[in-house]
């Protein structure tokens, strides 16, 4: 009898351990959290918002609804500004590659957008916090720009080559994993927006200065300053992918051409 008791206690302990790993900070958890964000089967006027963990469920849902509304405003217009300085010399190679990237959106109508949202579902996840899916009837219920397909090795095809769909432009962004999932996703989405700016530049200012020195110790220094800006319209996150091996988040974004 005591042997059976000890066995049962051990079994309970082991079960307890596995539950914590599976639902906590495990890599499986991050993948399942991303699956909750998939809107592939919904029309384009359905949006998803992620809160990240908060102390109460109410706060989480509130933050997720706010995130949902924010994605609608980002879709309307997202202004980007990118400044870069690069310095290299013939003797030492690349000396610096520094950049400052900024994004702006108009949040004046945030309250109005939140009022217009129809919440479809609310889910909770240890990684994502609350995940809210909501419809915004003011936007047309059209088809999504692209349906992601999985290639060899379980990686999405868009990681290999950018999709080509008439009327849309695509960009890919990535970010290392931050402590909170929502921070990782935001960084990855922002990187995708900047990638869109790199791939199509509305306006760029480029100024390079090359200094050549002659004589016995001849050398060449190259300083380049480049600034670019653009206004993205129809900015939408089409798909996401989490690379377990590199602990990196990837986002595929689209804009209207």
């Amino acid at each position, binding site marked *: 009898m005591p042997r059976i008791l000890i066995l049962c206690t051990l079994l309970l302990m082991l079960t307890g351990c596995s539950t914590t790993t599976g639902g906590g900070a495990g890599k499986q958890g991050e993948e399942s959290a991303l699956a909750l964000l998939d809107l592939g089967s919904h029309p384009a006027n359905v949006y998803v918002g992620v809160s990240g963990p908060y102390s109460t469920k109410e706060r989480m849902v509130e933050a997720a609804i706010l995130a949902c509304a924010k994605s609608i405003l980002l879709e309307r217009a997202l202004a980007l500004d990118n400044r*870069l300085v*690069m310095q290299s010399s013939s003797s030492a190679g690349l000396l610096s*590659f520094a*950049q400052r990237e900024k994004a702006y959106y108009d949040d004046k109508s945030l309250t109005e957008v939140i009022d217009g949202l129809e919440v479809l579902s609310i889910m909770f996840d240890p990684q994502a916090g609350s995940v809210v899916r909501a419809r915004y009837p003011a936007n047309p219920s059209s088809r999504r720009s692209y349906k992601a397909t999985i290639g060899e090795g379980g990686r999405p095809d868009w990681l*290999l080559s*950018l999709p080509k769909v008439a009327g849309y432009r695509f960009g*890919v*962004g*990535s970010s290392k994993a931050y402590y909170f999932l929502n921070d990782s996703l935001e960084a990855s989405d922002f*990187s995708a927006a*900047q*990638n869109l700016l*790199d*791939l*199509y*530049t*509305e*306006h*760029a*200012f*480029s*100024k*390079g200065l090359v200094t050549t020195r002659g004589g016995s110790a001849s050398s060449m220094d190259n300083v*380049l300053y*480049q600034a*670019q800006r653009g206004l993205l319209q129809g900015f939408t996150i089409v798909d996401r992918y989490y690379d377990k091996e590199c602990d990196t988040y990837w986002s595929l974004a689209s804009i209207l051409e």
Partner: protein
Amino acid sequence: MKKIVFALVALVLAFGLTGCASVAKDGPPPAPAKTIVLGADGIPQPDWVYKTVSTQDMHYESGYGKMSDKQISIKRATVEAKNKIAAWVSTTVKEVVVTYVNDAGSGDNRQAMDAMESISQQVAEATLSGVTTEEMWIDADNGVWVLCSIPLANIEKSFEPAAEAVAEAFVESDAAAAANAKMKDAFANLLKSADR
């Protein structure tokens, strides 16, 4: 006798065949096999990596970047390509400036030279609108190559305000209007010829 005839026929046939073979040897040599460079994910190296691409209405430049990750490598490659486009525009405009000064016969006029230099800078700064990344290729070392394009029409549009400024600045000169028109023509021609 039959044996001799048979041997003769065999000899004639053998000569005939040898003749055919020598005709074949004189023909064009087989083309050397083209080396195919494979990049990451087994994608062959596109021609634009080592060849200049040109069309009538677009200017193309390639850029290369290899940094800590793919995203930053793309950024560096596009920065390089855009800088090449900017340099190309600047060079073209400088050539126009030289042509203008020579045509007007005012090579010693420092005031005119300074004004033109200043205008050429304005053009170089304002022209990069609508730069698109057309193609991308990642080599076996994970270095990123991009091919960027800019419509020539965008460059010409940017040049128009500068040309008007020249006309205003030299309104008192008799040669200004004619030289300005010549400069515009020269610029349009250079854009066409420089891209070939």
